[in-house]
């Protein structure tokens, strides 16, 4: 039970870190947009945000690792 609680807290912590990264990138994106930075910088930020979501929230690596995700 303790191991499960530790594992949950670890995953929650990762979620917080990813969220903070996404929030910072969104802030930077907004600032870059209103400051009229070149479009490619906005696309670069968007791709970085998308990569974080796909990797950490959508767990794309589970496609090749069926045991991951806690299912029986």
């Amino acid at each position, binding site marked *: 039970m303790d191991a*499960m*609680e530790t*594992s*949950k807290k670890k*995953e*929650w912590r990762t*979620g*917080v870190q*990813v*969220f903070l990264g*996404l*929030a910072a990138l*969104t802030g930077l*994106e*907004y600032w*870059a*947009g*209103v400051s*009229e930075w070149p*479009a490619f910088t*906005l*696309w670069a*930020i*968007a791709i970085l*945000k*998308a990569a974080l*979501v*796909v990797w*950490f*929230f*959508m*767990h*794309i690596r*589970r*496609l090749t690792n*069926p*045991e991951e*995700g*806690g*299912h*029986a």
Partner: protein
Amino acid sequence: MSTHTAVLTAKEAARKMTTRRLGLWLFFLSDGFVFGGLLVTRFYLLGQARPHLEQFLGLIVTAVLLVSSFFMNRAEVSIAHNDRKSFVRNTVITMLLGIVFLVGVVGFEWQLAPFGPADGTEGAVFYMMTGMHAFHVLTGVIFLGFILRNGMRGHYSAENHWAVEAAANYWHFVDLVWIFFYPALYLIGTVGG
């Protein structure tokens, strides 16, 4: 159950999970083409001009969707660790944030936009992109409603929560689409070209 049978069952379960996940990602890919087409349409028809929209409102709804993804992730992690109470709480928060996003876009942005859906290419592109996305958010909220109901009835556990994983991934996919729509509609280019 013999060891041989147990190994076979485990293998079969792993194969089944791979197939489910692959099917879901193929759906994301096909749906992604729809949104990709809309994104290309926006730049083909409007070029470097962007619609005159409420910048701050755009940032607010983007932040709301981002926060909802955070709570969705928390809900999925909770059920994967048998914490049903936390799963229910985080799913409800995600649904509420989804509804706030819908109100922000459809209830406010659509009313505040200085053009209608039939007012030229600007209106067509804006309402099609946000409308299609809002429809996906709405279906996501409904999907979350189903898993919330089943979760409250105790249908999910650490060993059996594929529906939660699928709903969470769908929700993150909707967020993913907005990650590209937000700069395309609100930030890139200049107002009115």
